[in-house]
């Protein structure tokens, strides 16, 4: 299908089809991120640090300068980059397997140091690219190709936004979703705020965004939003968890 979305409205996207699976929410997240960069005039100054996992398909979709990181290492790569070029908009873009499992330490310590970049973590509760294995955010009882998540063996879904929100050096942190138009607008506003805080006040932000993975959830593509509403939101409530602009 030809992409009809106007290039002039979103200079951060290539004008071709997305390589993501039907019902995946990465393209939508790519799109609103691109809109923010275009609307705020950041595009010429932005560098994204890319993950390993489904999120790295963004490389083919977003027309933004990028540094390719290893699996989980975006927090460290972005630290090195931003410290050398504080004038650049630096955004990490990772999934929950990348940012919370193998890269948990890098994510946590970049946040704890309050590195002046914006971390986006797309939480689809599964390892997508490798075919549906259990991830840190897999729900209790959820079936994966590495078994059902049983709390007695694997504990409970990791609440990244809540953990990171505890860290005093963090500027802005919260969990958002893109499963309805209202939520899309809220997420876009959060990304915009995070990038502005990065550039104007040198603050770190963590934006966790819920996504569906219909292929590995074994649901129909169009059922993603419904499943998020019914099963995911009870485990992962939405909202801003830390906002330095609202603190005394």
């Amino acid at each position: 299908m030809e992409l009809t979305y106007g290039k002039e409205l979103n200079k951060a996207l290539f004008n071709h089809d997305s390589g993501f699976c039907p019902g995946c929410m990465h393209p939508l997240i790519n799109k609103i991120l691109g809109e923010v960069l275009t609307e705020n005039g950041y595009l010429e100054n932005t560098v994204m640090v890319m993950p390993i996992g489904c999120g790295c398909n963004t490389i083919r979709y977003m027309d933004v300068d990028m540094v390719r990181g290893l699996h989980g290492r975006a927090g460290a790569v972005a630290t090195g980059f931003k410290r050398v070029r504080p004038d650049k908009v630096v955004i990490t873009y990772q999934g929950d397997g990348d940012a919370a499992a193998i890269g948990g330490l890098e994510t946590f310590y970049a946040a704890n140091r309050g590195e002046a970049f914006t971390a986006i973590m797309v939480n689809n509760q599964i390892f997508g690219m490798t075919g549906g294995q259990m991830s840190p955010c897999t729900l209790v009882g959820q079936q994966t190709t590495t078994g059902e998540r049983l709390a007695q063996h694997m504990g409970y879904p990791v609440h990244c936004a809540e953990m990171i929100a505890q860290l005093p050096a963090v500027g802005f942190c919260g969990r958002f979703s893109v499963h309805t138009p209202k939520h899309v607008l809220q997420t876009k506003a959060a990304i915009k705020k995070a990038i502005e805080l990065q550039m104007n006040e040198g603050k770190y932000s963590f934006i966790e965004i819920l996504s569906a993975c219909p292929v590995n959830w074994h649901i129909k593509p169009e059922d993603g939003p419904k499943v998020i509403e019914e099963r995911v939101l009870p485990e992962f409530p939405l909202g801003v968890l830390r906002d330095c602009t609202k603190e005394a």
Partner: protein
Amino acid sequence: MSKKETLSEGKRQILSGNTALAEAAVRAGCKFYAGYPITPQTAITEYLSERMAETGGVFVQAESEVAAINMVLGASAAGARAMTATSCQGLSLMAEGMSSLAAGRIPGVIVDVQRGGAGTGAILPSQCDYSFVTRSLGHGGLHAYVFGPSTVQEIVDVTGRAFDIADEYRTPVLILTDGVLGLMMEAVTLPEFKEDIPDREWKIEGREGLRPKMMTGDNVKPPIAQENRLRDIFVPMYEEWEQDPLYEEVETEDAELIIAAWGSVARVAKTALKELREEGYRVGMIRPISLYPFPTQAFRSLDPAKVKNIVVAEHALPPQLMFDVDHAVQGRIPLTSCTHSSGVLLSPDEIADACRKLL
């Protein structure tokens, strides 16, 4: 007192290998350093924690060696000369990141102040990472240019070259020292601060003027494109390096026995060599300074009619340097291994005795 005030310009001064290396990096234009404490490397990290700020650079104490090498990757992609330093165990943790630097053609200088042994090992000196860094750089089979200096002055000299080679070839460069060289002090003359460091036209900084997108380490390419990249860029680069390895020959002209040794062990061997020469034995030494590229030809061109034995002295058990020498001489000259490991050090007497038995 700031580090600046304690260092005097252009004068021979007594510095430890670790301090000299750190200061040489600063003078070579290193603007980013990330490190994690580990004996016997820690002095480099401590020194630079203060010195980077004094010289307009950035210091980050990383949460792990894994993070440190990836910080170097990010800083280097942003255009800065960047370095990290560690000791053996930490280098294992950096393997994946070093491979990523090589594959992404991102320069970086990695220092390994070697300590002993596998696993937790020992904190005392060794040369047990030789094979690890010369065979290939983590997964994937790519290489770093690897230096194995032998004196504190040589540490200073190769550190400057390391940053230049890293930029010229867009490659990681390793400097292997050890607990002896890192902690021992001797007189060095430091170079001037390097001024004209070329800007990296490939650095990543955003699509200014909405020029076409740039990125590092793009591997979402068809297999044949990836293979061609290896064939067209990496293989010729390594072949070019192999044309010009760095090494020192000591009294090899009339030698009946050659000692092969590198790094701190080569110093010990040199004392043994001096004693043996005084006793009238015709002994020489070949000392690799670049461990990769290895001075294969220097060994291969030895005449078996003249050189009856080669003693390979190293702090590694099982031996490691031994295999490069073996590959070079192709069985034409008998090799004898003279080693200690795990922090037990070869003395000049031991190396001399090993030679005497063969003479």
